[in-house]
């Protein structure tokens, strides 16, 4: 039994495990797949969106800057074109024009100057004292001489402040003059500084050498190498804009760069942002996805456990019900076959037993005759013959019970009031109860409906139960409480004694035919089996509850529905009852 239970437990545990794993796999896998796919798609499209946005932004700024530079150049070109050589050498003229341009363009121009082909500044207008300054060695001057117009990189120059200049070369009868204007680096900076996105997104301009052309308020990595690498990458591609994602070497953070060439490829505008910052909403989405995933997993797992436990409990219940049903089928089958057997045996045995008893009787008769009276062992003979007769009667008893177990009793079905039968059987047993010092207490529900059943069979059941109770309490005395009531389409009769009770080991077997605890010759072990068969045949149920030294309760429940009259073989009825 114990081993069986253990086996069963492990079996149910296995089922539970299977169900749990199946549920978890089946529900989590699609969740993960869908989650990953959506996340990936979102990632990609968001990436594209952000990239496009940054691209556009940088493009716009690039255009702005290009326009700015072109316009400034245009200003200077215009000035150079309009002015005569005298005008250019005249500081007042320059002063006037500088003021005008400053008024028109918000102090973008810092100063103006005219330089001859020897690199000497002939005239100057501006805040610095740069008249007659010598520029012949400056790189920008060489470039300015070589080109019709030129925009320099940012440099410190003579004034020691970062600035860049716009130059226009003008030819006056073979004499070349260069008109030069300094652009306020702050004004230029503002063009780039406006490009600020998120916490870490900012822009700056580099020249071909990787030198900063604008000031950055951020601590930009001073390592020029990384920028030159960047430059190389840009050079390799022909497109104007380029997006690069790379890891910052010192901080280990991933950075995103948007690079675009300016000033005909001389300068490079770089927009730089932390990857995490640029794609912060991806991070948020991913976090949300993680949270949902974790919660989902938790829900699924707990659901799996709860569900599987419920299912397995149900399976276990069904299994045990099935087992019970099987047991009942076996039980009724057993009863049926026993009944058949009993009928046969009883018939066959009865006659030989009768003959044996008669023969012994005859011998008894013969012993009475004169000549045998002197026999030494006369008493022994007599005792022996008596014994044969007693045992013969015992056989008769057994066959009688066997037959009543199997024979067609009076199974006519009437509408009967169960309380009347109870009262009747109680009064039948009253005499015996008096000797056994047992008191019957009946508590009957007077509103019981009529039941369709065989009166004599019901009597038999009750009498058997009463007799058992009386047998159990013969020495001690006690009470037998009989209760009847109805509920849920059932009438239930409770027969409760306060006798010694039935040991647990016996409890499962008491309805088995031939199971008895009474001394040999006292019981046949058929009483309760008969009761069981009858009640099952009626479509009812009989149950027993018992506790040692507390007493035993038999509970009979009978269905109230209209019972169709059926008079088939009792064996079949038994089977019916069981099924």
């Amino acid at each position, binding site marked *: 039994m114990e081993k069986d239970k253990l086996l069963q437990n492990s079996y149910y545990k296995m089922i539970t495990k299977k169900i749990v794993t199946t549920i978890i796999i089946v529900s989590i896998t699609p969740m993960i797949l869908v989650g990953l796919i959506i996340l990936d798609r979102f990632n990609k499209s968001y990436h594209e969106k952000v990239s496009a946005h940054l691209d556009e932004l940088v493009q716009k700024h690039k255009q702005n800057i290009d326009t700015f530079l072109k316009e400034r150049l245009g200003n200077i070109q215009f000035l150079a074109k309009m002015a005569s050589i005298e005008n250019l050498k005249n500081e007042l003229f320059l002063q006037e024009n500088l003021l005008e341009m400053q008024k028109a363009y918000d102090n973008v121009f810092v100063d103006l100057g005219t330089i001859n082909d020897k690199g000497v500044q002939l005239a100057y207008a501006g805040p610095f004292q740069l008249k007659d300054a010598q520029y012949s060695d400056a790189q920008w001057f060489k470039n300015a001489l070589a080109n019709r117009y030129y925009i320099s990189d940012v440099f410190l120059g003579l004034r020691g402040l970062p600035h860049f200049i716009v130059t226009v070369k003008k030819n006056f009868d073979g004499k070349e003059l260069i008109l030069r204007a300094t652009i306020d680096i702050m004004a230029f900076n503002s063009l780039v500084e406006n490009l600020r996105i998120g916490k870490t997104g900012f822009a700056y301009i580099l020249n071909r050498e990787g030198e900063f052309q604008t000031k950055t308020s951020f601590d930009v990595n001073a390592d020029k190498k990384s920028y030159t690498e960047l430059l190389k990458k840009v050079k390799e591609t022909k497109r104007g804009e380029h997006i690069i994602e790379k890891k910052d070497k010192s901080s280990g953070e991933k950075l995103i760069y948007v690079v675009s060439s300016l000033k005909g490829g001389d300068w490079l505008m770089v927009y730089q942002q932390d990857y995490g910052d640029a794609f912060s909403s991806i991070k948020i989405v991913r976090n949300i996805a993680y949270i949902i995933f974790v919660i989902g997993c938790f829900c699924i797992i707990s659901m799996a456990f709860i569900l599987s436990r419920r299912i397995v409990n149900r399976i276990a219940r069904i299994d045990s019900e099935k087992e019970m049903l099987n047991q009942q089928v076996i039980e009724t089958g057993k009863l049926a076959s026993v009944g058949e057997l009993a*009928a046969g045996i*009883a*018939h066959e045995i*009865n*006659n030989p*037993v*009768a*003959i*044996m*008893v*008669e*023969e012994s*009787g*005859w011998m008894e*008769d013969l012993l009475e005759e004169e000549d045998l009276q002197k026999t030494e062992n006369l008493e022994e003979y007599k005792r022996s013959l008596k014994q044969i007769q007693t045992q*013969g*009667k015992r056989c*008769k008893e057994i*066959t*009688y019970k066997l*037959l*009543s177990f199997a*024979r067609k009793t*009076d199974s006519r079905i009437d509408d009967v009031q169960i309380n009347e039968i109870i009262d009747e059987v109680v009064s039948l047993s009253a005499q015996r109860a008096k000797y056994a010092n047992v008191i019957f207490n009946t508590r009957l529900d007077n509103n019981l409906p009529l039941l369709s059943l065989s009166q004599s069979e019901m009597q038999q059941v009750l009498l058997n139960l009463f007799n058992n109770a009386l047998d159990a309490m013969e020495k001690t005395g006690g009470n037998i409480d009989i209760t009847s009531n109805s509920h849920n389409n059932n009438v239930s009769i409770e027969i409760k004694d306060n006798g010694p009770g039935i040991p647990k080991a016996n409890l499962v077997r008491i309805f088995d035919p031939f199971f008895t605890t009474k001394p040999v010759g006292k019981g046949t072990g058929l009483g309760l089996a008969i009761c069981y068969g009858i009640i099952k045949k009626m479509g009812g149920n009989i149950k027993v509850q018992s506790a040692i030294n507390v007493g035993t309760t038999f509970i009979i429940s009978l269905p109230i529905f209209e019972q169709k009259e059926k008079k088939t073989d009792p064996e079949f009825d038994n089977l019916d009852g069981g099924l």
Partner: protein
Amino acid sequence: MKKIKLLLVDDEVPFVETMTKRLKKREFDVDTAHSGLDALKALESNDKIEVVVLDVKMPGMDGIETLREIKKVYPLTEVVMLTGHATVESAIEGMRFGAFDYLMKPCDIDQLVSKVTQAAEKKQKHENKIVEARIKEITSRRA
């Protein structure tokens, strides 16, 4: 007192033999038969038979049939049914057809004796009544 004449009918030969011996020892005049037909023949040949002890379960013509036949032909002859448990109901049914009583096998010899005696007495009484009635009739006729 005059011996009661009875007919013992049972298909179990040893039973019949022993029973016969025991009943004879108890001052009965016993005839035997081993089937219903035999019993009817015996009754035919011996009209002194007062009581028939008849087993219910016999092959061929069974106890109930035999009983009905006996009662039809010899209504005054009393019949005590002998039965196993399986046939108690038919024995009871037999009483409806006029059997005096029934006994369950294996039965106590004393019980059987007393039943047979009672049956014989009843028959005697009936016969006496009939005789009396006849006498009355005859006397009244004379008168």
